[in-house]
């Protein structure tokens, strides 16, 4: 008799997901599925609304990466208002947006590493769940926990200064930006009292990397072998191959590093990317069209970005990239837990970019908006913290949105996340079909590496706790456990 084990919701990842593990007659793992409840009603919600509302409305999709949606929508609308495809803005417009975006990357990655991932690293998969959380980190590694809080706060303040406010920011508008950075804000970010200044953020970013690399030396086997598998990788890169999280062309590489997509203008993304529907989940499975669904799936996010770019255009992060690349002899890095390593290199890169931008006079003055010949279709793509994010809009002659299509980062990572869960399930449960706390956490660690955003913005009090259900081959519930 085969059995189905259900783990839901997955804790310490965004929102709410569910894992089912199906056992065969011999109590080995047959197959696994990661179910993500993706709410897609917002695409309908946008239809009929004036297009200029989109950058504000889309922030309501998600409470954790509203800035990414805000900027991706604004980039798409740049095209619609005739302001170019990402590189046609005024220097002030583009640099303010970049500061906003790198602030978002910085705060999001910091939150993920220090408060979601570090408990796994510090205490291990087998540790008592009572201490394997950030409170445990706070008690035993107070400095680390404080750094995480203050780095997150710094990034949030950057967002507030560039977007206008923490929630429902209005900073990015079609064709540009609606505010400059004030001199007081600039002064505060550069020379603010410790620790809330950019130099301290760069320093702490370097310290975080030292912490991880020290951990890696001591736990190399675990980090390298946990849910590792070869894959293709996709991201935006700058025209010259540099890492660029705000704008660029689409590039994908295969497991050997061969370019399987390169220099692609994302306005044409529909010619290159297809989404497969599978009957057991609402979340689609994107793939590169020319390779087909079986061969064309890919990873996105920090690990993918480090695998696709030729170099990182800031010196400290570039030095880290060079060291990172020696780990796999220059080939694309296939190690699931190296997402954390890559995320830390991106934190450092984001800090360096912010430091450079904060000294740029274009943030303080200059034209903010450009407009040109209006069109009826625009696509905006950005490298969100979790990976490549697509926003595609079409409008009618009355300026109303007639089509909105979004491919979010977590959707792009759907196939690799499923494969990671499968790997972990096999290694922990083959011959030992028991739901244990370490096994459950191992599954979560695999998913958590991708930092998925299982978006559901309602969060009122009274949420469901962790639930584990066991079904027989006929889908009869034979056991259920709640934490």
């Amino acid at each position, binding site marked *: 008799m085969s059995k189905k084990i259900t783990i839901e919701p997955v*804790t*310490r*990842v*965004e*929102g709410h997901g569910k894992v089912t593990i199906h056992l065969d007659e011999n109590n080995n793992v047959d197959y696994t599925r990661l179910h993500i409840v993706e*709410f897609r*009603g*917002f695409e309908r*919600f946008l239809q009929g609304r004036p297009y200029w509302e989109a950058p504000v*409305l889309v922030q*309501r999709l998600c*409470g*954790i990466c*509203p800035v990414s949606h805000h900027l991706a929508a604004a980039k798409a609308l740049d095209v619609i208002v005739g302001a170019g495809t990402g590189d046609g803005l005024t220097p002030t417009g583009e640099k303010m947006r970049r500061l906003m975006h790198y602030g978002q990357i910085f705060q*999001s990655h910091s*939150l*993920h590493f220090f*408060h*979601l991932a570090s408990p796994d690293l510090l205490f291990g998969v087998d540790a008592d769940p009572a201490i394997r*959380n*950030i*409170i445990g980190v*706070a*008690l035993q590694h*107070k400095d680390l*926990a*404080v750094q*995480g*809080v*203050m780095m*997150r*706060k710094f990034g*949030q303040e950057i967002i507030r200064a560039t977007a206008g406010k*923490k*929630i*429902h920011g209005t900073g990015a508008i079609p064709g540009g930006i609606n505010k400059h950075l004030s001199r007081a804000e600039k002064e505060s970010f550069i020379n603010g009292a410790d620790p809330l200044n950019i130099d301290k953020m760069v320093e702490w970013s370097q310290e975080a990397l030292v912490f991880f690399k020290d951990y890696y030396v001591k736990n190399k086997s675990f980090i390298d072998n946990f849910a590792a598998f070869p894959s293709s990788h996709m991201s935006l890169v700058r025209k010259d191959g540099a890492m660029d999280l705000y704008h660029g062309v689409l590039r994908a590489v295969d497991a050997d590093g061969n370019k399987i997509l390169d220099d692609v203008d994302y306005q044409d993304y529909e010619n290159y990317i297809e989404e497969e529907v599978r009957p057991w989940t609402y979340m689609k499975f994107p793939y590169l069209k020319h390779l087909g669904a079986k061969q064309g799936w890919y990873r996105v996010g920090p690990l993918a970005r480090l695998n696709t770019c030729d170099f990182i255009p800031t010196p400290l992060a570039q030095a880290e990239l060079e060291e990172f690349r020696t780990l796999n002899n220059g080939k694309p890095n296939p190690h699931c837990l190296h997402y954390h390593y890559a995320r830390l290199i991106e934190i450092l890169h984001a800090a360096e970019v912010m430091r450079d931008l904060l000294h740029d006079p274009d943030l303080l003055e200059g034209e903010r908006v450009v407009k040109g010949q209006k069109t009826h279709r625009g696509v905006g793509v950005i490298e969100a913290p979790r990976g490549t994010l697509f926003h595609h809009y079409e409008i009618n002659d009355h300026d109303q949105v007639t089509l909105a299509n979004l491919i979010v980062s977590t959707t792009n990572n759907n196939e690799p996340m499923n494969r990671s869960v499968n790997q972990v399930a096999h290694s922990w449960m083959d011959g030992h079909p028991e739901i244990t706390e370490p096994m459950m956490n191992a599954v979560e660690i695999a998913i958590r590496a991708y*930092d998925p955003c299982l978006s*559901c*913005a*309602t*969060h*009122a*009090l*009274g*949420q469901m706790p962790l639930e584990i259900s066991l079904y027989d081959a006929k889908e009869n519930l034979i056991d259920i456990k709640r934490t």
Partner: protein
Amino acid sequence: MQILIYGYGNLGRQDDGLGILLSQKLEAWVKKEGFSGFTFENNYQLNIEDAAEIANKDLVIFADASEEEIDDFCLSVVDGKKELSFTTHAASPSYIVKLCNDLFDRQPLVLLVHIKGYEWAFREGLSEKAEKNLGNAFRYLQKLLANPEDAIKSREGLKPC
């Protein structure tokens, strides 16, 4: 006395915006009355940096929508001893208080206003019943905050959950 009023939720999900709307109504009232010592924050959800935000306050009032079985609204004291849940989407008030205590060695008096909501669809605007509950909570807090020292000295008179 330094007081933080912090509403959280999603205005785009109907009654999920109750906490933010309460905070905004109180901010307008405080401004009109000319009271000092108040800070107002709104966000989709609480998050880790809020531990630093509350560390230098004497009284913190979190406000959130609630699906619990309550009449219109109620208040609970948040002591950081239970409901220590955390995802990057949301941190519980207890989690924030516990983090503040552990990281910054501070524990202000923290109250959570639970306001009963009913509708959570992807659109703006409160349900009729939620609008009424918001009004009740607002009037109650007007009285409480007119003399906030009493809230610090004595927790009597709070409307418990």
